[in-house]
């Protein structure tokens, strides 16, 4: 079924490195924000998501914690990593795929060599209404995030390298000098 097929794809993915372009459009199709960046993902739960100026942001996850470094604001927010992937749905790619079934209902649609997986969160309070992962044959090709206000963020990947060894330094974050830290971890 759709969930099993999507999980099979997630389980095949040990690591991924790609460039991406991200475009956010409002419900009338007007472009609100356009940016590009690089994504590195590795199991379990590791990720590095870096966007270029003028919207410079770096998100690093070591599988336990997520650091969201906003260079404009000179601010780092630390959160626990859990599937409430509010700000960065890409975390789902390296997260514990077993939790996908608990947190989302999954639908699959096939068109030629494209297969698209639509994830609707079971917890309605999430910031986004649904997520889409689109594969071209075995390769992840793009993602779409549909948010509550009808805005659609499309992320298209390029120069994708899957299951290659990744530099684990990429998933370590040390807080730069003079930057404010917001500790958003929930007390354990």
């Amino acid at each position, binding site marked *: 079924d759709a969930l099993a097929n999507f999980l099979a794809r997630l389980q095949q993915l040990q690591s991924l490195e790609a460039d991406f372009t991200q475009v956010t459009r409002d419900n009338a199709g007007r472009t609100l924000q356009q940016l590009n960046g690089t994504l590195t993902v590795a199991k379990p739960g590791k990720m590095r998501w870096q966007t270029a100026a003028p919207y410079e942001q770096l998100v690093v996850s070591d599988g336990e914690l997520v650091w969201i470094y*906003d260079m404009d604001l000179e601010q780092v927010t630390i959160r626990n990593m859990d599937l409430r992937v509010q700000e960065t749905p890409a975390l789902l790619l390296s997260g514990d795929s077993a939790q996908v079934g608990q947190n989302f209902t999954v639908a699959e649609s096939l068109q030629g060599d494209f297969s698209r997986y639509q994830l609707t969160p079971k917890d309605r309070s999430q*910031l986004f209404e649904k997520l889409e992962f689109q594969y071209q044959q075995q390769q992840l090709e793009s993602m779409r995030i549909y948010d509550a206000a009808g*805005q659609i963020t499309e992320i298209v990947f390029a120069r994708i390298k899957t299951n290659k060894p990744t530099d684990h330094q990429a998933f370590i974050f040390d807080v730069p000098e003079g930057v404010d830290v917001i500790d958003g971890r929930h007390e354990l």
Partner: protein
Amino acid sequence: CAALLPQGGKEGQLTRLNELHNWQVRGKLSVVTPDDSVTGYLTWQQQQDQYDLFIAGPFGSGSSRLQGNRQQAELSLPGWPQPQQARSPEQLMLTHLGWNFPVSDIRYWVKGQPSPNGRVTSQYSDQGLLTQLQQHGWEIRYSRYQQRGGYWLPGLIRISGYDFRFTFAIQEWTLND
């Protein structure tokens, strides 16, 4: 060369800032409250005593608008059929957003000058630019000053107090005086 540095020191800077009554500022706003933190985009338009704030949430989760003047304030939030009124903007923000947000002071702080009334302690750079300010129980830190339209204006403003932290990274100033 000298023209790139502010002229007239602290007094020169403050007198010039007092000339600015019609402006707009746009940028990214981070709000840390006692129980959450959120980042959005803020556009603030000021014409004499008339203010108009437009705050767009993260991932486009709707936008809020706060407008008014010395006599009256009005707030509209996503999903409200019509706006709410009150005497002060601070009252509206506290009641409906749970933010202790000193709108009437930030109108001055955002330019890099103390608000006109109340006790102030402040530090200035040797070029006369405000770097730190304590007023009405808040602490404000300034950085990334840039020359825009003949004025030296801050690029990053950090306001903290009463368990709240507002950080405003300014992307654009528009001066209409």
